[in-house]
C-alpha cells in the first residue's frame, strides 16, 4: 500500500534506531485529508523520533512512509518540505541571530508557493510584525514558538507536523497558539499535533494515537475515549 495521492500520511511498520536501541517500534499511523491527528505519550515514548523519521532526519529507520502518494523514504528533507510536509521542531529551534523576518522568510523560500504569505502570518501574530527586525533570540518563549509555527506555515505545507508546541510555555500563551489551529485547518492543512498535555491535545484532535515505549498503545477518537483507559495506555502497566 503506497497511499493515495490525496492521503497526507501513511506510515507502516516504522522502526527507528539509535545504535542498537530501538526508539520506535513497528508503528502504523495514517492521517486523512483535513484531519488533525494527535500523538500523545510520555517523555521518551518515541514521538520526536517518529517525526524525525518522517522528515528523513532519523539516524536509521526502517518501514514505509508515504505522503500524498510520494515515498518519503527516497526523498531528502528539502524535497519533502517542497512536496508539502513541514515540521515545527521540538524546542522551536529558531536561528537565534537572524531577525524574526529572516527566520520567517527562510520558511517561505524552502517551501511551496501558496496562499500563506508573510503578511498573513503577521496578521495572525501581530506581535511578530512589531518585532520583525529583532533577532529571534530576544523574543519570549511564546513569541519564538509563533515564529517557529510561522516559519513552518510559510512553507505552505499540506501536512504540518507540530512537536510539543506548548513545551515550557505559560497556559495563556499556549491558548493563543492553539487558537490558530482552526485557521490552519481552514487552509486545508492536515496536522499531526504532538503533546504531552493530553487534555489540550485531545480537545483539538479528530483522532489520537497514544505512544508507549516506542509503540502505539492506543488509537481512537477523543469523544470515545475514557480518561482512565488513556492514562493506562499513556503510562503503561
Amino acid at each position, binding site marked *: 500500500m503506497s497511499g493515495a495521492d490525496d492521503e497526507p500520511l501513511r506510515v507502516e511498520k516504522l522502526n527507528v534506531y539509535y545504535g542498537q536501541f530501538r526508539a520506535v517500534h513497528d508503528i502504523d499511523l495514517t492521517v486523512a485529508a483535513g484531519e488533525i491527528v494527535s500523538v500523545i505519550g510520555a517523555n521518551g515514548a518515541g514521538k520526536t523520533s517518529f517525526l524525525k523519521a518522517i522528515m528523513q532526519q532519523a539516524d536509521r529507520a526502517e518501514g514505509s512512509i508515504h505522503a500524498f502518494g510520494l515515498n518519503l523514504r527516497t526523498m531528502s528533507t528539502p524535497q519533502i518540505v517542497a512536496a508539502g510536509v*513541514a515540521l515545527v521542531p521540538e524546542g522551536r529551534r529558531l536561528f537565534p541571530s537572524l531577525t524574526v523576518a529572516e527566520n520567517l522568510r527562510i520558511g517561505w523560500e524552502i517551501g511551496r508557493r501558496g496562499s500563506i504569505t508573510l503578511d498573513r502570518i503577521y496578521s495572525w501574530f501581530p506581535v511578530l510584525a512589531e518585532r520583525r527586525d529583532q533577532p529571534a533570540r530576544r523574543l519570549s518563549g511564546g513569541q519564538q514558538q509563533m515564529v517557529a509555527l510561522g516559519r513552518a506555515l510559510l512553507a505552505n505545507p499540506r501536512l504540518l507536523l507540530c512537536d510539543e508546541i506548548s513545551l515550557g510555555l505559560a497556559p495563556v500563551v499556549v491558548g493563543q497558539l492553539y487558537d490558530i489551529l482552526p485557521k490552519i485547518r481552514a487552509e486545508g492543512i492536515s496536522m499531526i499535533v504532538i503533546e504531552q498535555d493530553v487534555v489540550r491535545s485531545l480537545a483539538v484532535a479528530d483522532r489520537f494515537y497514544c505512544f508507549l515505549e516506542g509503540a502505539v498503545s492506543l488509537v481512537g477518537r477523543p469523544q470515545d475515549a475514557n480518561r482512565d483507559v488513556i492514562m493506562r495506555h499513556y503510562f503503561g502497566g
Partner: protein
Amino acid sequence: MTIDMLNQAIQGALIGGLYALFAVGLSLSLGVIRFINIAHGDLIVLASFLLMSLSGLLGLSPFVVALFMLPLAFAAGYWLQRLLLQRVVGESVLPVILVTFGLSIMIQNGLLQAYGPDTHKLHGGQIEVASVHMFGLFDIGFFPLAVFFTAIVVIAALDILLYRTSIGARIRAVADDPAAADLIGLSSGRMYAIAMGVVGMTVMLAASCMSVWTNFDPAIGPSRLLTAFEAVVLGGLGSLWGTLVGGMVLGIAQNLGAQMDASWQILAQHLIFLLVLVLRPRGLFPKA
C-alpha cells in the same frame, strides 16, 4: 616619528589590504562552517600557480585571467566542500584539521613536483610601477592602493551577500544551528558548499593580488595561512571589517619591524599578534 617611519607604516597598512584578502575566506569558513582550513594558504598558492600557467598560455594579464576564473574557483570550493570536507565536519574539529592538513601537504608537494622549488612573480603591467605622490612627502604605489581598494570592495560585497540577501540569511541560519536547519529542510551541507564556493572566489582574488605583489613558491602556503589566521583573530572572530584592520596591524608591524632589521619583519608580525592575544583575547572588534 620620522617621516620614513610614517611612510613605512602607511606602506604597511596598505599591505594589510592583501592580508585581508588572504583572511576573508578563512574568516568565512571559520564563521560559517566553524572549521579551520589548514590548506587555505596552499590553496592561494595553488591558484597563483594556476594563474601563472594560464596567463602565460593565453598571454593575458593575471588579473583578467583571475576574473574569468572566478566561476571555476566557486565550483572548486563548492565541490571541495561537498566531496571531501563535508564528510568530516561535525562536533569534533580534529578530523577536519587533519584532512585539510593532509590536503595542505599534498598541494605543497604536488606544486613542488609540477613546478619545482623556484620562486616566481607575475607581471601585472603598468599598474605595478605607477604611483601617486602624496602630501609632497611620499610616493604611494598605485598597485598597493588598488589592492587595498579591492579588499574593501570584497569585504563590502561579502557584507552585502551575508546581511542583505536571502542566500546570506540562509548561510547565517546554517551557521547558527546546522542541525535545526537540516531538520526544517534547509540543507546545511548545501549552504556550507555555497559558502566554500565564495571562499574559493576570495582565494582566486587573493592569489591574483599576491602573485603580482610578492614572490611565491610551492612552500609559502603555511606562512600565508598564519598571516590570514592572525588577521582573523586580531580583527575579532567573525568580523569581516575587523580582518582588514587586523591585516593592517600586521602589515604595519612587519614594516616597522623591518625598519629595525630586515630579519625582524616576520617576528614583529607574530609578536604583535601574540601581544594583542594577551591583551584582548577576543580581538580588536569582537562580535557580540
